């Protein structure tokens, strides 16, 4: 379980998070939505400890994560932009992360699933965007951790891989894991998310199920509901 209280963060003069209070229960798929620059990634990175909040606290399983690092043993993270060390090959990168985490992995199955075998010995800089994203997904899913944080997981994926990804996310959910996702693809969110939180300008605008969001905005379609909120607030 994640508990966030009064989280503030600014980058120089730009205030990105303005007092976020949020509780994410254990188990289920939780989507963080919001327009570009609304603070989604900053929020995620604060949970991961990559961004240091100005004030406020984050508790994961009732422990304050400030200056801690070992809680990340239970988190798998898929970054938004798949930036990898360029002069490593795919297999070297996978082996390196395995070596660093020392946890059992199912990387072989995942490599098989995404047909990455022919790319294993290629350097990461020579891969296409979609293939990089597949490697990114393998890295994020190969460990068995309590919590998964996926920042824009669908970027650059072809339809076949997208279906595979959705299946994997559902499977992880069935194992009782907490999955946090950000995405701009509303159909994707609608299909998989149990609960959404809508960030606007560094504040939480809405938190609840998709059905609640639709009824609140009187729309039948999530995309229109979100667009409605945005135009209403002149974003």
């Amino acid at each position, binding site marked *: 379980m994640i508990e966030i209280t009064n989280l503030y963060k600014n*980058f120089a003069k730009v205030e990105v998070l303005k007092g976020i209070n949020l509780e994410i229960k254990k188990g289920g798929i939780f989507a963080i939505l919001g327009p570009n620059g609304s603070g989604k990634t900053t929020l995620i*990175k604060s949970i*991961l*400890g*990559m*961004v*240091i909040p100005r004030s406020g606290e984050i508790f994961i399983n009732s422990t304050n994560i400030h*200056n801690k*690092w*070992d*809680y*990340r*043993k239970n*988190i798998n*993270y898929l*970054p938004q932009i798949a*930036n*990898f*060390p*360029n*002069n*490593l090959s795919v297999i070297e990168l996978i082996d*390196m*992360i395995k*070596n*660093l*985490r020392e946890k059992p992995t199912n990387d072989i199955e995942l490599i098989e699933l995404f047909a990455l075998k022919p790319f294993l010995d290629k350097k990461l800089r020579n891969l296409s965007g979609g293939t990089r994203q597949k490697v990114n997904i393998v890295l994020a899913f190969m460990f068995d951790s309590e919590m998964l944080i996926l920042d824009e997981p669908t970027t650059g994926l072809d339809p076949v891989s997208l279906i595979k990804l959705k299946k994997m996310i559902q499977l992880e959910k069935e194992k009782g894991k907490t999955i946090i996702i950000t995405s701009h693809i509303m159909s994707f969110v609608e299909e998989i998310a149990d609960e959404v939180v809508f960030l606007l300008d560094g504040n939480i605008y809405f938190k609840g199920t998709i059905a609640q969001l639709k009824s609140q905005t009187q729309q039948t379609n999530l995309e229109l509901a979100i667009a409605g909120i945005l135009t209403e607030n002149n974003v």
Partner: protein
Amino acid sequence: MFKILKYSFFDLMRSRWSYVYFLFYLLLGFVLLFLNNDVSKAIITLLNIIIVIVPLIGTIFGIMYYYNSREFTELLLAQPLKRTTIFLGQYIGLSVSLSLSLLLGLGIPFLVYGLFESSEIWNFASLIIVGVFLTFIFVALAMNIALSNENRIKGFGYAILVWLFMAVIYDGLFLISLMLFNDYPLDKFSLIISMFNPIDLSRILILLKLDISALLGYTGALFNKFFGTNWGMFISFFVLSCWIVIPAWIIVYKSMRKDF
């Protein structure tokens, strides 16, 4: 930390630049030895080059490595690792690989030339030790600059400026101050001032070791009196170590507070 150190080290060992750096020293070593035809003379020439080139290479590699490995760093930050581990691991990995290029690049030609049969082995060793110190110092300074500057061009500019200041401008200011205050006793002053610049300190250490301090006149005699003793040596190496430990500590301090 050892794992990160290992990865950084091997990452660098496979990069072309480490070889370029290594080959540069190899070439330098051979050319100097065969032109001078004398180990001790070669060492003196080498001193002048090392004292300037090693800090420059340390600075440039330090800054380039940090900026180039940003992705790697971000990947590591999401893993269950302490920030101290990540940054110190990278720092030490980089410094060790540069030091190794220096040691092998110069060591091989001198060995081929017959270093072990000559009496210069200790002078050569102290030259390498000073080179290693300078590498660690300037890599740490460069990483500090890189950590505080997101803008690569700015970071690069500042780093080069620091090197230029230490290698050239500092001595200029030093000389000017000696001229200006010519009427006052300046022995202690110059002794202390040279402590504040690792390049100067290294140069003096080697020069005194090479027994050519007589060329330095009165100041040389004074310096010899100080640095020639065990106590002086101890102080100098202590100061050089401070030049490593303090910037390294600031790297840790800054990295703990940085957003990625």
